[in-house]
């Protein structure tokens, strides 16, 4: 049923429908509304879960780690500095192969302090072993939670996942969202049934130490599992489409891509602005298209290479920067296209909540067509 609702409320409702048994989170802007709503649901008896109040994000994810190892479906949400504080736990969760789902309301990282949106926080955890989904709008943000749990808990995967949606731009925006019913979600998402769990009657330790004879192999297996998860993601997305009409089987999505000469590559809410700009540019006769990346980890290199093989210019929008190098998405796209003659240009854009407007996208297209790139967009030269 279509409801006009705030992004955070839609996500909280989707999480409720996933029936998490343990929720542990620490409030931080712009994620706060999600965990406030979940706490209220637990208090009012609408969600049968243990809500563990904690003193930090480190504790929040640690509590989820324990809960998941004990066999519970666990959930957390955070952003920015909170996610940075979870850094160590993130690696442990993935290494212990615990399918925790965490919503990231994407926000910039300090210093300087910024509560506004970019994607530096989750991108900085790209090496941690978590799957990473990026939502363009609140419909996708809610749907990706059901899919994330189904993929993460698949016995062939057993890995955690971030569902990322842009802080404020999506989290605090009211949009129509088609919410599933509890019956729908129960049909799509089976109960969490791990093969091994913490149990005093049958003791087991998770994440033991590995000597140099074994560590390399553990890393190999986790990497292979994450890469192999592509087929599980595609199948789960396809099944979702069959049941509810919105197909998420593709890890990348094209818009006006077939004859496009200049292709913009982007992730998250910025894709909406890009699509509107493309509509305008198409009316002016310019062949511009968009390749939206929905799944950043595992990175769909083959899909990206296939979608971009006929492009004359590729313009990657990065709401993050690996300082001293380039934006993370551009680095992946360049890697995917290595050996081809397609030129890839990187544009660092919208950091720390800077508005990205249609004119900015037009500027990017114009620069890419001229063969200029690897630069920031919208720099206020007067303050430099």
């Amino acid at each position, binding site marked *: 049923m279509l409801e006009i609702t705030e992004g955070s409320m839609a996500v909280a409702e989707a999480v409720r429908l996933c029936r998490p048994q343990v929720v542990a989170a620490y409030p931080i802007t712009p994620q706060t509304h999600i965990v406030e709503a979940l706490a209220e649901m637990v208090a009012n008896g609408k969600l049968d879960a243990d809500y563990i109040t904690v003193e930090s994000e480190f504790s929040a994810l640690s509590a989820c780690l324990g809960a998941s190892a004990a066999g519970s479906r666990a959930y957390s949400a955070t952003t920015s500095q909170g996610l940075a504080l979870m850094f160590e736990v993130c690696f442990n969760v993935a290494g212990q192969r615990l399918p925790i789902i965490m919503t990231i309301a994407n926000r910039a990282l300090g210093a300087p302090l910024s509560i506004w949106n970019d994607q530096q926080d989750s991108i900085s955890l790209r090496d941690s072993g978590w799957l990473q989904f990026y939502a363009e709008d609140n419909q996708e943000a809610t749907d990706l939670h059901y899919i994330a749990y189904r993929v993460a808990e698949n016995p062939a995967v*057993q890995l955690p996942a971030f569902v990322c949606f842009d802080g404020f731009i999506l989290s605090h925006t009211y949009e129509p969202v088609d919410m599933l019913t509890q019956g729908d979600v129960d049909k799509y998402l089976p109960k969490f049934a791990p093969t091994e769990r913490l149990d005093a009657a049958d003791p087991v330790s998770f994440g*033991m130490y590995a000597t140099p004879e074994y560590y390399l192999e553990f890393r190999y297996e986790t990497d292979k599992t994450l890469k192999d998860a592509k087929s599980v993601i595609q199948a789960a997305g396809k099944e979702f489409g069959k049941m509810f009409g919105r197909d998420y089987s593709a890890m990348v999505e094209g818009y006006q891509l077939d004859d496009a000469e200049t292709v913009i590559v982007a992730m998250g809410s910025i894709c909406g602005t890009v699509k509107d700009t493309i509509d305008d540019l198409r009316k002016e006769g310019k062949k511009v298209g968009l390749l939206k990346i929905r799944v950043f980890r595992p990175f769909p290199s083959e899909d990206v290479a296939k979608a971009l093989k006929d492009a004359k210019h590729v313009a990657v929008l990065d709401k993050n920067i690996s300082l001293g190098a380039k934006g993370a998405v551009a680095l992946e796209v360049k890697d995917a296209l290595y050996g081809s003659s397609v030129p890839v240009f990187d544009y660092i854009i919208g950091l720390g909540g800077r508005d990205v407007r249609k004119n900015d996208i037009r500027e990017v297209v114009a620069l890419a067509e001229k063969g200029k790139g690897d630069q920031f967009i919208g720099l206020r030269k007067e303050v430099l």
Partner: protein
Amino acid sequence: MALAVGCRAHPGKGRDNKTGSWRVFKPLFDHEKCSKCGTCQVICPEGCITEDKEGFFDPDYAYCKGCGLCAEECPKEAIAMKQEEK
């Protein structure tokens, strides 16, 4: 043996960790010089030295880390530490 997913392990399996691979110097026991005093067995921090039927002592190389304490303490200098090539 296949790796356990998530490096999970059931308790009581310390013996599965064959710490002998950590060794750089290998203790070689010379029974000719040995007086069967048993100091090596008492001093071994790994607890991997056992007495045989004749009263001689020998380490279990699967677990001996090569710390050299037995050689240091042996009153008869019957234990030699030799660098091991693997």
